[in-house]
C-alpha cells in the first residue's frame, strides 16, 4: 500500500520511461492512457527563475499496432508519426505514437545506410517481412529501440533538456513482457554483431536503468494476479526495474465485515434487509430477492479480491487501486483514473 509519505514524494520521480504491461483484458491500454494524463498533469516548472515555463509533455507509445490509443482518445487511426491526442488543464500535453516495426526498420536502415532503392529490393524479396515478423527478437529491438530514442531525444527549445518529460509504453502482455524487454539476451544468440546487436545493447542500458519502471496492471482475480506475481519474478530475475502494481476495476465494498461474511455464507439477513427497505417503500419480495442475490455475489467477489490483494502484498511493489468505470471508458473516465493515480503518488 502507498503511504502518505511516498504519495507526497511521488513514487516515480526520476522515472522517464513507464512501461505498462498486464494480462489481456485487464485494461492495460486504459491504465497506460490515464498514467500519461496523470504525468502530463504534473505542475509546470522553470529551470531558472527567469526562464520559460515548462509544461509537461508526455509521449504514449503503442507497439502492437491495434490502434488502441486512437480508440482510447476517440481519435482517427494514428499513423507512424507523433501526434497530440490530449491536453490537460495547466497546459500539459499527451502525444501518441504507433510504432510500426516495418517503417522503423526502413527508417533505421536509411539512417545508417542511405538505402533508397535497396530498401525497395529488400521489401520485394520479403526481407523486411522476414526481419519484422518472423525473425525472433528483431521486431522487439525495433519497437523498444524507437521508444528509447524518444526517451533520450534532446529538446530543441530552450528551457528543457528532453523533448519528452516522460514516455509511457502500452506494452505487450505480462506473459511476454520480460522476453520483449530483455532484447539483449533475445538477439545476442542470433545477431552476434552488427548494428542490431549494438542497438540492443543501447536499449538495454536504458531499460535496466533507474529511469525506467515496469508497471503491471491486474484485476483482483486469480489468473491475472498469478501472472502478475510470475511476471514480477521474471522481470527481477532479468534485472529489469519493477514499478508499481496497478489494480484495475477494484470494487467498492458496500457491506460491513460481518455482513460480508454472512452474505458470502448462508446469505444476507433478509428480515434485516426488508426492514431497511421498508423505510423507503421498497420492501417488495422481488427487490429483496434481487438484492439478496447481489449481496451474495458482492460478498464472494470482495472476499476473493481481499485474498488476491494479500498475495500481491507479498511482492514488495507499491500497489495503486483504480476504480471500476461503470459508465465505460471515455475521457471523463480516464481523467478519473489519472486523478486516482496522482492522489496515490504514482505520478
Amino acid at each position, binding site marked *: 500500500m502507498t503511504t502518505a509519505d511516498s504519495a507526497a514524494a511521488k513514487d516515480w520521480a526520476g522515472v522517464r520511461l513507464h512501461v505498462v504491461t498486464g494480462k489481456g483484458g485487464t485494461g492495460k491500454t486504459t491504465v497506460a492512457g490515464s498514467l500519461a494524463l496523470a504525468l502530463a498533469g504534473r505542475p509546470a516548472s522553470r529551470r531558472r527563475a527567469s526562464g520559460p515555463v515548462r509544461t509537461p509533455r508526455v509521449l504514449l507509445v503503442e507497439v502492437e499496432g491495434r490502434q488502441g490509443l486512437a480508440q482510447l482518445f476517440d481519435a482517427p487511426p494514428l499513423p507512424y508519426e507523433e501526434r497530440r491526442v490530449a491536453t490537460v488543464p495547466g497546459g500539459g500535453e499527451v502525444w501518441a505514437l504507433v510504432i510500426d516495426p516495418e517503417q522503423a526498420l526502413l527508417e533505421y536502415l536509411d539512417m545508417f545506410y542511405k538505402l533508397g532503392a535497396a530498401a525497395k529490393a529488400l521489401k520485394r524479396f520479403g526481407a523486411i517481412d522476414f526481419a519484422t515478423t518472423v525473425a525472433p*527478437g528483431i521486431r522487439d529491438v525495433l519497437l523498444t529501440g524507437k521508444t528509447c530514442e524518444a526517451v533520450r531525444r534532446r529538446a530543441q527549445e530552450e528551457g528543457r533538456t528532453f523533448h519528452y518529460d516522460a514516455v509511457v509504453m502500452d506494452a505487450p502482455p505480462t506473459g511476454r513482457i520480460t522476453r520483449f524487454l530483455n532484447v539483449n539476451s533475445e538477439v545476442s544468440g542470433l545477431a552476434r554483431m552488427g548494428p542490431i546487436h549494438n542497438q540492443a545493447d543501447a536499449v538495454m542500458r536504458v531499460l535496466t536503468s533507474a529511469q525506467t519502471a515496469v508497471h503491471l496492471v491486474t484485476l483482483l*482475480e486469480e489468473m491475472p494476479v498469478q501472472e502478475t506475481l510470475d511476471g514480477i519474478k521474471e522481470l527481477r530475475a532479468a534485472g529489469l526495474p519493477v514499478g508499481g502494481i496497478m489494480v484495475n476495476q477494484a470494487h467498492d465494498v458496500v457491506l460491513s465485515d460481518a455482513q460480508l461474511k454472512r452474505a458470502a455464507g448462508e446469505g444476507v439477513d433478509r428480515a434485516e434487509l426488508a426492514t431497511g427497505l421498508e423505510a423507503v417503500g421498497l420492501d417488495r419480495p422481488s427487490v429483496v430477492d434481487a438484492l439478496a442475490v447481489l449481496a451474495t455475489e458482492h460478498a464472494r467477489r470482495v472476499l476473493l479480491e481481499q485474498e488476491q490483494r494479500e498475495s500481491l502484498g507479498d511482492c514488495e511493489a507499491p500497489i495503486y487501486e483504480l476504480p471500476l468505470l461503470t459508465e465505460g471508458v471515455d475521457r471523463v473516465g480516464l481523467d478519473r483514473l489519472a486523478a486516482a493515480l496522482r492522489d496515490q503518488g504514482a505520478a
Partner: protein
Amino acid sequence: MSTDSVSPDLELDALLDDRANRIIVCCGSGGVGKTTTAAAFALRAAERGRDVVVLTIDPARRLAQSLGLNELDNTPRPVEGIDGSAGGRLHAMMLDMKRTFDEIVVEHSDAGRAEQILSNPFYRSLSASFAGTQEYMAMEKLGQLHAQGDWDLIIVDTPPSRSALDFLDAPNRLGSFLDGRFIKILTAPAKVGGFGAFKLLTSGFGLVTGALGKLLGSGLLSDVQSFVSALDTMFGGFRQRAEATYKLLQAKGTSFVVVAAPEPDALREASFFARRLAEEKMPLAGLVLNRVHPRLTDLTAERSLAAAEQLDVPNPTSAQSLAGGLLRLHAERVEVSRREARLAERFAASHPGISMLRLPAQAEDVHDLDGLRAVTDAAVAAAG
C-alpha cells in the same frame, strides 16, 4: 431495445449435440475467457454423450488441475469426475508449443538431421518465441488430433493473442516465410546467377543479403540458411501443412465460436473476426458474450439511488446501511447491464443473423468441473 437489432439465441445444446459437428474453434481477443468457454463447452458436450477432446493453450493453474492437467505433456488425458451416464467421455490436453515443433522435426527427419535442426540457434528462437509459432503449433496439433480420429468432437482454444485474427494469419505467415521466395534466395544463390535474364535479380540479391548481413550480423543469416536447408529436404514444405489445416477449418463439420467480453475492444475484435470468417467461407456458429451482468429486478437505477440517499443518515442502523449499500450496488449493476446491452445491440445491428449466447459473470473464478457446469447451465437457463 429495437426489434431489428436483437441477435437470435445461439442454441448451445443443438450445436454440441449435432454429430455432424466435429470441430469447434473458440477464438477471440486475449482475456475474454476463451479457455474457460472451451472447457465448459467440452464438459457439457461430453456429459451429453459426445466423445470429446479439448485442446487448451494456457489455462489457469487450478482449472488445469481440475481437468487433470498437471503437466504440459502434449498428450490428451482423460478427465475424471465427469458424468458419463450419457455415454460420453472427455479428454483434455495443454499445448506445448516447443515440443509440438520438435516432434514435427523428429518425425520427419533422420536422427542426425533432427539433431542439427534442434540445436540450430535460429530454430531455438523460432520454436520458443511467441510471434506466430504458438498459433501455428495450435493448428498443427488440431490437424494431428483430427487425423488420429479417436474423438467425435474436438474443441480448440486459441492462443492468447492481442488480436483474434492472428490465429488465422500467423500459420500462413510462418508457412509462407519458411517456404517462400526469400528463403529460396538465401539458400540457393547459385541457382539464380549466370544467365542474362537473371542479372538484375542477382544484383538485387546481393544487395539484400549484403544489407541484411550488415544489419543483423552475418551469423544470423548463416544460421537461417543452415536451418532452412536442413528443413527443406525433410518434408514437403511448411506452407502445404499450413494450407491443409486451413482447409480443415473450411471443411464441413468445423464451426467457429467467437468469444468476447461485453467491452468495446473485445467486441470490435469479434466484429473483425466475424467478417473475416465470412470472407474465408468458414462457418461461424455464433458469438459468446462472456461475463455479462444480467439485471436482477426492474427497479430503476434512479429510484434505487434516491432510496439509497434517503437511507444515508448519520449513525445508520445496520438495516439502513445494509439496504443502502445494496441499493447503490443495484444502481451500479443497472448501469453496467444497460451499457452491456447497448454494446450487444450494436454488434447485432452490424451483424444481423449472427446468433448470440450470453454467459453470466460468475462471482468467483471458475476452477473446477462444478464451476464449468455452472457457466453453461446458467446460460442455457437464461436463454430459456
